[in-house]
């Protein structure tokens, strides 16, 4: 066990910190709205060129081309968190599609899509879930029927983030209706400009449209958009979902929220008493602190396993379930601690932290459900982590 960094990595940390702080004036702020604001695109380019994002993606596709080094990636993430300077672009194109293309894309697809995606010039959305295919993702019904070199696509997707802004979609469609459900799916890339696509915002409990519904009516797209092979889309999607689950439940983000809660409880008073001085609230706070520290230590364990190219086992499988639940509980305590004012939301004079605790309490509930529900996570933990049997399929009648 050794948690100190070697001098090489300490020097790397200082370099990263220096580059970020010396150039922070180039970073976009909240006022630079729009995913393709020139300042955002320029900042992304700067970060790639300095190896602070797209770090291990080969130069020929527009990345920085460094050898994979998880510790360096971790240091970079920590320095962005520590300095509070605008992070690199994320989104499903960069975090999910690019790794998938690197693994399974044709040379043409890599050439055409990776560079503009990394540079923020091409925005993607993910067409996975459907009204009838949520936890049971392999039940997708959106149909792609061959017509010459094209597919004609009909159907509906739901929970599609950034569909309004997206230039392109990576989409699961059923290309063989007669095959078993996992074997008739293809993973297809096509333009969101294609005629016949309609995007409708899906307003959620936070009052925002974080997601959309996307409708396809006789949408004609080229078959060359298939990634890997026709009817092998399930394997492709599984490769990508691994990337998504890694994004949810980051313990450093949880720790940062916990510290915000501590500050709130020190600063805010109720009936003349600081919230932190209320022994009941303080006890709940320290109880959560135990969980936050446990998840952070668990994260160190997962990182170590990745460094050694070993499986983290249970320590990895539980992150999404525990991390999302813990975030939700932190927001819940903040609301309780604020007492009556905890219900304020949106705008107004007495709003605390811009109403973000209520927003998080709702949005985090969405994350407990999204990306594999808590119940699906428990199936995965018990089956893959504890070796328990799968629920038997009901007999066909």
């Amino acid at each position, binding site marked *: *066990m050794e*948690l100190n960094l070697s001098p090489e*990595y300490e020097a790397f940390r200082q370099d990263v910190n220096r580059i970020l702080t010396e150039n922070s004036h180039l970073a976009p702020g909240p006022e630079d709205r729009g995913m393709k604001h020139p300042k955002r695109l320029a900042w992304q380019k700067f970060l790639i060129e300095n190896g602070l994002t797209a770090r291990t993606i080969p130069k020929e596709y527009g990345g920085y081309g460094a050898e994979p080094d998880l510790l360096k990636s971790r240091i970079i993430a920590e320095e962005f968190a520590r300095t509070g300077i605008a992070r690199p672009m994320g989104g499903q194109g960069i975090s999910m599609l690019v790794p998938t293309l690197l693994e399974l894309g044709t040379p043409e697809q890599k050439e055409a899509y990776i560079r503009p995606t990394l540079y923020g010039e091409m925005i993607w959305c993910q067409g996975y879930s459907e009204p009838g295919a949520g936890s049971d993702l392999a039940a997708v019904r959106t149909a792609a029927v061959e017509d010459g070199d094209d597919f004609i696509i009909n159907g509906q997707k739901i929970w599609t983030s950034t569909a309004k802004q997206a230039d392109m979609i990576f989409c699961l469609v059923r290309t063989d209706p007669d095959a078993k459900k996992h074997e008739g799916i293809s993973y297809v890339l096509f333009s969101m400009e294609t005629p016949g696509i309609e995007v409708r915002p899906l307003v959620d409990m936070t009052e925002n449209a974080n997601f959309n519904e996307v409708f396809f009516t006789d949408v004609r797209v080229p078959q060359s958009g298939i990634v890997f092979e026709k009817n092998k889309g399930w394997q492709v999607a599984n490769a990508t979902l691994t990337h998504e689950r890694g994004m949810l439940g980051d313990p450093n983000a949880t720790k940062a929220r916990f510290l915000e809660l501590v500050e709130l409880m020190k600063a805010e008073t109720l009936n003349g008493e600081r919230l932190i001085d209320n022994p009941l609230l303080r*006890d709940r706070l320290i109880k959560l602190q135990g969980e936050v520290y446990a998840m952070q230590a*668990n994260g160190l364990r997962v990182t170590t396993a990745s460094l*050694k190219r070993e499986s983290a086992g249970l320590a990895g499988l539980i992150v999404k379930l525990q991390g999302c639940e813990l975030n939700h509980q932190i927001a819940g305590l903040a609301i309780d601690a604020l007492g009556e004012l905890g219900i304020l939301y949106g705008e107004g004079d007495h709003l605390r932290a811009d109403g973000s605790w209520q927003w998080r309490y709702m949005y985090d509930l969405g994350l407990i459900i999204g990306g594999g529900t808590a119940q699906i996570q428990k199936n995965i*933990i018990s089956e893959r982590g*504890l070796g328990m049997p*799968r629920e038997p399929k009901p007999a066909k009648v």
Partner: protein
Amino acid sequence: MEFALSEDQRMLQDSISGFLKDNASLDTIRKIADGNAEAKAGLDAGLAEMGIMGLYVPEAMGGSGLGLLEACLVQEALGYTVAPSGFLAATVAADLLAKDQATYASGIADGEKVFGLALTELASRRDGSGVTADNGRLSGTSLLADVPTGATHVLVADTSGACHVASGWSAKPMRTIDRTRTFQELAFDGVAAEASTQSDPSALAVARLLVAADTLGAAQAMIDKAVEYAKERKQFGRVIGSFQAVKHLCAEMAAKLEPARALVWHAAYAMDTKDPEALVMANLAKAHLAEVGTFVAKTATEVHGGMGFTDLLGLHYWFKRIGVNRQLFGSPEQVRQTAAELQGLVAA
């Protein structure tokens, strides 16, 4: 950076677990719980022979000079098999005495001195009991002392939080839910304090962290037993472990305990490396493991159905181990209060 057990640490785990698997079977534990002194003496002798009592004593004082992380691994293995042992008392005593009482510390390593702990005053002062030190003489009573068989000395905390070494006391057993371990009410009648050390928050933190490690082991054993049982027991024509209602209980236990394991490691590493947050982390670990342990103890019993409630499987020994650990050296609320105080979150 590496947050994982080393090869040596895994070997230590294997050797202690291997020994306990053979020498602290449920049969042996039952005998000990029923007061069979021979069974207890056999286990004590075997553990002493493994050299664990001096594990945390510095090498210069004849010990193995290992860290609290290694001590936690041993304590976890003891908890896994619900084995009673003087290891916790020896380790806490070593922590306190190695600082300026080298003769006592070296006695622990060579087995010449066997320490008991009478530290209730550090965590739970009560009206009507308590030990006072007056001109080097100790008087009064200490509750729930952990005094191993054959103890030659006890480390006793007085009402001011200072700790003393004493070798004369009278003991009265205190029956608890856990019959595998003995707890006693000690009375001191003006006996000489042979050595004294100032109040030191680290001793209590060490004791609490070791209890957390013990609960970690006991809870892991309960999960293993529940999963194994659920894979064998059949109802409605299938193993109950194929019902999601049962699988999800097992998943919840594992999901809570796995990060708790990392917390125990991290806290022990922090104590060993004198991290500024070490005492906070040790207290957080104690409180957190108490909560997770209680959840696992209840849930694992439920997975076993009616059998979990009986004496036939002996699962209750683990349930009670965890229940006692939850209260020892302070209930979760008390321990969280300590953690808050250590962080300056409690107004003076």
